[in-house]
């Protein structure tokens, strides 16, 4: 029996439709609450090429809704973990994991390699970037977003339909609208909306049914109410995106967890009072910091040792090269631990600074 027999015996799909699915290329941005169910159904349906881009790592609190992951995924990259799980589900399709952040610099080239873009991200910064890149590359965009018990679903840039900016022209400021990890979300809600997003992708590829273009479906999980609201194309908004397409790649991301604002030099902290210095390297890593008041909490166990982190002092967090420390700050931020700074220097350099500074150094 054919893997896709369920599709093939449907007169609306058949061998011809299944062939269309196997030739299609879909990029899913964000492998979180929405991305997981989208990916799962698209992989199962036999979408020929499935791209997954996500720079984030799996945390314990994701498992309540991000159904591709298990406890063994914790601490690992979401795109890579999703790929491993999906490849087991369907080894006949090509799955490409991009364990990196979508940026103004990589979006256009990446989108160019796919037929349909799916937005399963969790912040406006990336959502507007995805919309604009979809307009510039003329790709249909399947959009889903959630808030507590409510969801929004739409298809943008489809057959000259409206874009996300036609519905919401003004990008909210960072922090203006909280995301799921900040306000909570009913775990099954992204499952419902994500599954409906996968449905829109399949309909677009197969050319069947009515595509949710020029409309936004607003779903309310507590009352089971749906409302479909019409969105008109706003030519000025679309033209503005096209007009600035040459500048697109020169734009800079307002960082989502704003690692840039939280990045700092060790020099700033060495002369400060009330700072907790945290080494998040693994226990075996060298060189060790000696003669200096620092606690070591390896990144791999950081989430289990949150009680060691000071809630009153500023936290100066460092690692071997200043990269993992950013991840650590993002993790702490998600746990609402503020005043954390990622030290841009690595351990060796930090030792140099410590030796130069008199503070806290015990002279032999």
């Amino acid at each position, binding site marked *: 029996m054919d893997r896709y027999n369920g599709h093939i015996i449907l007169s609306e799909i058949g061998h011809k439709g299944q062939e269309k699915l196997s030739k299609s290329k879909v990029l899913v941005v964000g492998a979180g609450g929405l991305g997981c169910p989208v990916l799962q159904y698209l992989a199962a349906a036999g979408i020929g090429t499935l791209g997954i881009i996500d720079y984030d790592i799996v945390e314990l609190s994701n498992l309540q809704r991000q159904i591709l992951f298990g406890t063994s995924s914790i601490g690992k990259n979401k795109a890579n973990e999703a790929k491993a799980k999906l490849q087991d589900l369907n080894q006949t399709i090509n799955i490409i994991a991009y364990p990196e952040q979508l940026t103004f610099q990589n979006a256009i080239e990446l989108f160019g390699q796919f037929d349909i873009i799916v*937005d399963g991200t969790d912040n406006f910064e990336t959502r507007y970037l995805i919309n604009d890149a979809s307009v510039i590359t003329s790709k249909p965009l399947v959009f889903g977003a959630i*808030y507590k018990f409510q969801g*929004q679903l739409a298809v943008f840039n489809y057959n000259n339909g409206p874009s996300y900016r036609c519905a919401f022209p003004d990008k909210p400021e960072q922090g203006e609208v909280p995301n799921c990890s900040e306000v909570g979300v009913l775990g099954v809600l992204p499952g419902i909306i994500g599954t409906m997003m996968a449905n829109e992708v399949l309909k677009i590829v197969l050319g069947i049914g009515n595509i949710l273009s020029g409309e936004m479906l607003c779903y309310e999980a507590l009352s089971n109410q749906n409302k479909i*609201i019409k*969105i008109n194309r706003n030519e000025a908004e679309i033209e503005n995106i096209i007009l600035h397409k040459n500048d697109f790649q020169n734009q800079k991301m307002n960082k989502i967890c704003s690692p840039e604002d939280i990045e700092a030099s060790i020099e700033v902290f060495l002369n400060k009072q009330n700072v907790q210095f945290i080494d998040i390297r693994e226990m075996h890593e060298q060189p060790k910091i000696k003669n200096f008041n620092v606690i070591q909490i390896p990144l791999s166990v950081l989430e289990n040792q949150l009680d060691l982190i000071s809630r009153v002092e500023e936290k100066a967090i460092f690692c071997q090269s200043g990269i993992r420390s950013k991840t650590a700050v993002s993790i702490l931020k998600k746990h609402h631990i503020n005043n954390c700074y990622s030290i841009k220097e690595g351990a060796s350099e930090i030792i140099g600074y410590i030796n130069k500074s008199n503070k806290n150094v015990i002279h032999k």
Partner: protein
Amino acid sequence: MKIKIKYFGMLTEVTSCEEEIIDFSGILISELLEVLFIKYPNLKDKKFQVAQNNELVPVNIKISSQEIVLLPPFSGG
């Protein structure tokens, strides 16, 4: 004229209700919003679009529906 106002997402946290009936004597959607901003001062700081007859519309047009929807953008995923 009695108008049903429906609030979505984080707007319900400002209004403490998902919908309500407002007795309104004005003409434009923007006038209705002025009434709502007096009732809920924090609503003014929120970003949202307005729909009537289940269609997103600009606020400088006449009210032609018994139901007005205030729809904010969601970012969660």
